[in-house]
């Protein structure tokens, strides 16, 4: 794997802004009463779609540390076919996928929007969109930089 320039390292001020944004969204999530495990599921799924190994490594660990099961992380790429996710999680995953895929579809379809706003309060819905948006930003920077995953612990 080649070593590439890291946009976050070269512009630390800019990186600080993005981390402040992340913190602000995390706080809004707690205020809105969203389960941190749900947010971790979304961060993992978005990172799967965007192909960010560094982000997957970090968020699979974080999900496990919060008590997420191995199986629910394994089945995440095929969540539609698996019985392991509840109606709220399914609405949130469909929303996260649609937001991540706008480069392909140019829209977040009405049915996805309606399902998400039915399953969540307005504020919870807004926090989910922001969280997915911020994760997409981290994915872009780390994929572009080919940020390596840390060495495995023995």
């Amino acid at each position, binding site marked *: 794997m080649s070593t590439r320039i890291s946009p976050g390292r070269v*512009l630390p001020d*800019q990186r600080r802004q993005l981390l402040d944004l992340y913190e602000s969204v995390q706080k809004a999530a707690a205020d809105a009463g969203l389960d941190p495990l749900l947010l971790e599921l979304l961060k993992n799924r978005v990172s799967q*779609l965007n192909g960010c190994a560094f982000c997957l490594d970090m968020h699979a660990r974080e999900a496990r540390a919060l008590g997420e099961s191995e199986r629910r992380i394994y089945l995440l790429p095929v969540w539609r076919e698996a019985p392991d996710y509840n109606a709220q999680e399914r609405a949130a995953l469909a929303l996260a996928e649609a937001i991540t895929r706008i*480069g392909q579809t140019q829209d977040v379809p009405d049915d996805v*929007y309606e399902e998400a706003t039915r399953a969540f309060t307005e504020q919870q819905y807004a926090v989910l969109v922001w969280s997915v948006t911020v994760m997409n930003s981290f994915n872009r*920077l780390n994929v572009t930089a080919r940020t390596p995953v840390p060495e495995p612990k023995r």
Partner: protein
Amino acid sequence: MSERIQLSAALPDAYRHLARAGRVAEKAAVEAGLDQRLVELVKIRVSQLNGCAFCVDQHTHDARQLGETERRLFLLTAWWETELYSEQERAALELAEAMTKLVQVQDVPDEVYQRATKVFAEEQYVAVAWVATVMNALNRLGVTSHKPPAER
């Protein structure tokens, strides 16, 4: 177009941070010696790919204010077919497109990275990458909100 929850108003604090990130990226671009019109071309192209009408309207307006020509904006969706864009602009557009299409390819290919880092100094390259990243974030909020273009 249906009315949807407006995401910038729902989390004003988060929006303030994102807007600030956008300004810092632009300042970095200008300080690295990049033409602001190149920055606007990148923002417009990314917004076209993501389908954000509000953002395309905003940034074509801004580009025209900066002296950009109609013709270069009209042909931007087929930029690689023409001689209207400089080598730097082409490299920036190619990088921005690759970063925006991540979900299709799960990578920014080596040749794209190499062309970009050949025509740009390191500070210029990272500024373009940040501009494309922030624009992608703003597009996600705009598209999901079905944010209408401003009346002009």
